[in-house]
Structures are given as C-alpha cells and as structure tokens.
C-alpha cells in the first residue's frame, strides 16, 4: 500500500519477535502433547503470552481482557470441566492427521497468498490505520470527553456492537443454566459429594490461605471498581471489572466452599443480575429514543452538553456490562461446580 514505509528493527521489534517465538513454541507443544492437564495449562500460558504481546503492540485494553479471560476465567472453567475419565487424550489416527494437515495447509496457503499485499507492520498510513481509526483518535475527546479512545469507541461509536456482546455473554449464561442447571440436582435427585472431610488434613494447614484470601477479597473488589471507573482514562471498563469482581467471589468459593459463596451471593441474585445488566444497557438506548433521538444516542441524555451526555450514557452502559458480566461469570462457575461427578481412583 505505502511503499515508502519500512518497518524499523528497534527494541520493540526484538521483543515482538521473542514473544512470537514463545507463542509458536507453546502452540506446537499443544499439538504434540496428549496430557490434557498440560494442554489446559499451556492454553492458559498461550493467552498469557499473547496478552503480553498485545501490550507490546499498544493494545492495553485487549491485553487486560485477554489476561482476565484467557489466563483466569478460562483456566478455572477448563478445570471445572476436566471431569475426565482419562487424563490423556487418545492420539489422532494417521488418516485424520493427514486429512487435517492438508485442510490446514490449504487454508494457510490462502492466507500466505494474501501476505504480499498486506500493509507493512507499523505503517501509520496503511488503509486500516489512516482512515476511521485516526478519525476516532481525533474526535474522541471533543465528542465524548473520554481520553481512552477504546472505551469511547466501544461504548459510544460502536456501542451497538457492545450491546450485542453483552447479549452474547447473557446467552452463554443462559446456555449454561439450561445445560447444567444451577442447583445440585442431577436427574431429579440431589447429588452429594463423597468427600472425606475427616481425612482433610487441610483443616489445620490452610490457615495462611484463608487469612490471605480474607484480606485479598475486599482489595480485589476495590480493584474491580477502580478498573470500572478508571476505564475512561486507562485500560479497563465494565467487562474487565465484571470479571475481576466475579473472580473475588470465585476465590471466596475456592477457599470457603461453593455453599458459602452461594450463601453470600445467592444464585437468584446472580440470575437477576445477568438479565438486569442487559436491560440497563438496552434501556439506556431506549432513553435516547424517548428523548427524541436515535437508538443509543447519548448526546440527548444531557440537554445542555452533548459530551456530558455521552459521558453519562457511557457510564450507564458500562455499569450494565459490569453487572451482566459479573453475574454470568458466577452463573457459569456455579453451574460447573455443582456438577462434578466423583472421580474414581483408577481414573486418577
């Protein structure tokens, strides 16, 4: 596109290269390994390293989310679902291996074919960088008074996408509720776990964990709110904050038991929250309609100052996102933990 631009080989490029090589190693290792536990761990590491890479490519918001989701929530979920009859995967059959290999080769070839016409890495005048993206950078402050352009684009310019995104999360929560349920009922009867509490040598030994967690949990929640309300100025926002606050509850559940967590944050509250957040988001949009403008127009929320209206609207929808994300994460966690079958010793 822009033949004059040449990507410089500076310190950042070197960091970039090393991180990419790490990603390659992890990716290839996942292909080769058959130990499910190692695969789950490596998947966590993969998203950790790619989050680092996102930081080095200036995508701090993305890195934030990837860290919270990929390394945190996904790993916990994967563990929750690792109710495996065997801890190793069966190796793929050679026929299947080769067939997959050719499919992948063809797909990869199609992409490699396109590489020659792709813009150089870091080119400021390439088509994607010079057009609408640049326009957002210039307009965000005057239009919305929000310095973090990612937040303003996410919540206002492309706010409708984010409404969809929040609904996707709600749909997933709904799906887990439908597929797994949230109580402990399996086939109509309560399933009690046969854990030998008497033998739990843990009881005396976990003092450190319990004390540290008790100290950490309020701080985590506080940090969550910081991420929520500082999202306009730094990386973060409703989604990340929702995940962090949910993770505080998850930590509580890990240390004090899911029943204790359910007593503190009852499943019904969580279910209401999941729906409520989407309704707050959608309702903010409808407020724009009622005030005589288009859907999701925040300018009219404050009749005196459009940018202030934008700020109000963005705050309101971010709270909606926070509530839904936090609730759905807990719906999912409750769903998975309530359904762990007993794993026999021979499987272990």
């Amino acid at each position, binding site marked *: 596109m822009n033949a004059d631009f040449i990507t410089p080989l500076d310190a950042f490029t070197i960091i970039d290269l090393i991180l990419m090589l790490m990603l390659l190693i992890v990716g290839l290792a996942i292909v080769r390994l058959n130990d499910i536990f190692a695969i789950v761990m490596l998947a966590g590491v993969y998203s950790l390293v790619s989050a680092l890479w996102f930081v080095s490519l200036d995508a701090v918001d993305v890195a934030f989310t990837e860290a919270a989701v990929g390394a945190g929530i996904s790993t916990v979920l994967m563990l929750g679902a690792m109710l495996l009859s065997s801890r190793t995967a069966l190796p793929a059959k050679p026929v299947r291996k080769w067939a997959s290999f050719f499919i992948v080769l063809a797909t990869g070839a*199609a*992409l490699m*074919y*396109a590489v*020659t*016409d*792709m*813009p150089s890495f870091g080119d400021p005048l*390439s*088509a*994607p*960088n*010079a*057009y*609408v*993206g640049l*326009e*957002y950078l210039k*307009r965000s402050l005057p239009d919305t008074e929000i310095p973090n352009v990612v937040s303003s684009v996410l919540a*206002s*310019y*492309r*706010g*409708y*996408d984010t*409404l*969809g*995104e929040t*609904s*996707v999360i*709600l*749909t*997933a929560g*709904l*799906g887990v*509720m*439908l*597929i797994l349920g949230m109580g402990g009922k399996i086939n109509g009867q309560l399933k009690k776990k046969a854990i030998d509490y008497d033998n739990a040598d843990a009881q005396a030994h976990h003092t450190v964990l319990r004390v540290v967690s008790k100290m950490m949990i309020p701080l985590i929640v506080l940090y969550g709110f910081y991420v929520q309300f500082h999202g306009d100025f730094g990386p973060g926002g409703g989604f990340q904050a929702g995940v962090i606050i949910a993770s505080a509850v998850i930590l509580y559940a890990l240390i004090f038991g899911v029943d204790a967590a359910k007593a503190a944050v009852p499943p019904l509250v969580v*279910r*209401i929250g*999941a*729906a*409520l957040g*989407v*309704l707050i988001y*959608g*309702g903010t*949009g*409808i407020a*724009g*309609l009622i005030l005589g*403008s*288009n*859907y*999701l*127009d*925040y*300018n009219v929320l404050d009749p005196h100052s459009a940018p202030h209206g934008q700020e109000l609207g963005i705050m309101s929808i971010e709270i909606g996102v926070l509530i839904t994300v936090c609730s759905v994460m807990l719906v999912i966690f409750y769903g998975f933990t309530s359904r762990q079958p007993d794993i026999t010793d021979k499987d272990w």
Partner: protein
Amino acid sequence: MTMAMALGMIMPILTWAGTHAPPLVVVTPLLAGPIAVFLHKGRLAWAWALAISILTFVFVLLLMPQVIQNGHIAYYMGTWVPPLGIEYRIDSLNLLILLLVSAMGVLSLVFGLPLVENEIEESKRGQFFAAFLLCLAGLLGVTITGDAFNVFVFLEISSIATYVLVSMGAERDRRAYVAAFNYLVMGTIGATFFVIGVGLLYMASGTLNMADIAMHIHGHSDNRVVRAAFAFIVIGLGLKMAMFPLHTWLPSAYARAPSMVGVFLASTATKVAFYAMVRFIFSVFTPGSPFEGAVFDLVLAPMAVAAMIICSVQALYQINIRRLLAYSSIAQLGYMLLGLSMGSIAGVAAGLLHLFNHALMKGALFMGVGKASLRQGVTNVQDLRGLGKTMPLTAASFTVAGLSLIGVPLTAGFVSKYYLVVAALERGWWWAVAALIVSSVLAIFYIGKMLETMYLHEPPKITKSKKTAPQAPAKTSLLALGPLMLMAAANIYFFFDASLPKGLADAAAKALLGGGAS
C-alpha cells in the same frame, strides 16, 4: 369524533415507531429475552415470547411501506454517521428475509407450545423461550445490519442460542449433546473464518461499513487481500449455512433438536447465513470481476450441483425422517446456491425466491413431523404408517408441502424451480437444468416413500404398554394444527400469487447487481 381522536393519538406513535422500527425490530426480542428467564410459571413465558414475536413482526411490517417506497432506508445507531458508527440499512433483500424470519418466529411459537410442553422440562421453559427470543434477535440482527463486524456479533448471538436450543433435545434423544457440540465446533470455526475475512476486508479498506468497504475496494479486485477475504467469508458463511462439503453438522443437529427448534431453524437459520453470503458477495465485493466470475463458475456452481444430487441420494437412504428432511435441505440449498452462482439478475432472483419457498415447505414438513410425533412418537419413516387415516389434516398438509418440495405444479416449489430453469437456460447452463431434473426425480422418491407409508400402510396399533410420547391435550394440539395448515396453504397460495416474494426478490436482485452497494 372519538375515532378521529384515537387516530390522532395513534398516528404520531405509528410514525415514531415507523422511524425507529429498524433498531426496535432487533432490540425488542433482545431485551425481552432476559425478562423471559424469570417467567417459568405455566404458559406465561410462552405467551410473553409470542407477544414479543408478534410485536417484532409488526415492526417489520412498519418497515415494509418505507422500503418499497424509497428503495432502501438507513438508520444510524447513536446518530453517528456511517464510517464512524453502525448503520442499519434495509432494502428489498433484507426486507424479504426479515419478513420470513419474523413470521416464522411467530408461527413456530404458536405451533411449538404443545411440543415444548411435551419435550422440555417445565422448570426450563422460561429459559428455553428466552434462548429462543435471543436466537430470533440474533437472526434479525444479522439480516438488518449494514456493518460487517456487527454481522459477526449477531451471528454469534443466534449461533450460541442455537447450540443451546439444539442441546435441549437431549430429553428426547441423548445424542443431542454430541450433535450440539459438533455444531458448536463447526459453527465457531465458521465464525472465526468469517472474522478473518472481515479483518482482511478491514485491512484493505480501513472501514467496517459494508457500503463504505464496497466503495474502497471497488476496482481493487486484483488485490490479494481482498481475494483472500472473499474466500474466507464464503467458507465461513458456507460453514454456517451448511454449504455442500461443509454440511456434516447439519443433519444431526436438526434431527436431534426439539421439534419446535427444528421447525424454526430449518426455515430460518441457514437462510439467514445464505442471505449474509449474498449480501457480501454482491454488495461488498465486486461481482463483475474475473476473479469472482471464476469462483462462481468453477467452485460455487459445481458445489451446488454436487449438493443437489449427492445429498438427495443421501436423503433416499435415511430412516430417520428429520435426518431425511435435513439432507433434503442441504440439497435445496444447492438450488439457491446455483441461482446465486449464475451471477445474473434472473438467477439471483430465482435463488432468493427459492429461499423463501423452501422456508415455507421445510417449515411445513418439520411441523408435520412434529405434529405427528405428538400423537405417536414419530422418529423414523416407518412410524408414519397410516397417518393418512389417523391424522388426515396433518397428513394432507404434509403431502402439500412434500409436493411443493418436489416442485409439482400448483405449489410454490414449482414457481421457483421454473424461474431457476429459465435463468439457467438464459445462461446456457444445460447441465444445471439436467441436475435440477435429476434432483427433483430423487425428491419424488424420498418424498414418495414417506407418502406411501402414510397412505398405503395400516396404522400401528397403539398399545398402552408401549412407551410413546404422551398424547397432548386436544386444545393445544389444535393450536399446532393452525400454523401447519397455514404453511401448507401458503405453499399453494404462492403458486397463484407470487407477487410479494417475487417482487421483493426481483427488486433485491436488481439492486444487488445493478447499482452496486445501494
């Protein structure tokens, strides 16, 4: 006097609703879904979902006069001008699909009550209908939007809801979980391919608005990034709509889903993905370029023909009725794809008309199976024995829809096949006409097999000891008969007067191929 006053009150509301109908079409079911989660008492959730889907249909109807009058209407979310914000853009093509999807939403809800009460645990019904509403919102959202990435977001709302809905069939058939999982994996690969395609388009154009992308990549069809984007979008959406070699997930998913979900999906989900493909191929990419021409002639058309013949043959060998119908759906998708790959106005219009008609006939056929299964737990073709005697109305509707699928004159199926043949002859594609005929003959066999079992075999003696699905109360059973007969009647009606779908399809094809993006 009071009339005038009432009109004076209603008119402004109607005008207001008309102006803001584009977002309301999607937002109404989207926000009603979360509320439905809490309505699990009796039939409350069902009534709520039905009311919402009717409201949605009304909003679509409000759009209709505006679109027909102006050619297309645009709506800016948050009043941000298109390349900055997300635009809703509705022309005849969207309108056709919107009408189809929202009407099918209403019909399958009316039809589905007895089936849901039969197949879904009571405590889960509220959530089930919530997922249904979200799925509906997703499908409508894909159809109405003018923003490439927005398509992905709403495609995923509908897809995730669909995976969940399919898995709900597990109470009838435990394999539903595996079917849903395979669907999830294939669907996600498809969605990811689509995202790669959109990313490449963004790389080439710097924008995400479809009309704007079209403007920027116009004349750059030799750009390799654009070509790769084309390939990835076609494959991604091809996975979502079960295009021939990528269709393996579909038969199991449709066969094992709850009956009501089967009806809704068979008549809408693949159609919406097909719509998205048409939209991208003709509105975003440059259809006249040699590269696209080569793809049409060398890839899409042969695939379409292969689907028409191979999947019809596969349908012949199916024992399970729903699987049979699902394979036939893939074959019928081949017809639509054939129309698309002709790349001519007549061809595309015929393909779109067939899309509309196929939704009618497949909806009716799946409804027929569902209705029959209420009475005698139908899964296999054998179970249809004597249906002509035990449930004459259901059998008659099923027959009409079956004949329409074959393409017998006096049914809607004949009209679209006729136009397809005309369009193929116009391009001199004799082999396509031959394939159409072969596929129709195969359809005679597999539909004939079912009709034969229905009318020429004695009904099975229902013994109390045999564990079949409990018979639903007569009242709700009657409720299911209404939509079924309506759909069958529509299959006949649209033979005599196809002006609405034909007019919209023609206008859409002209707009797509005539003036580029507009």
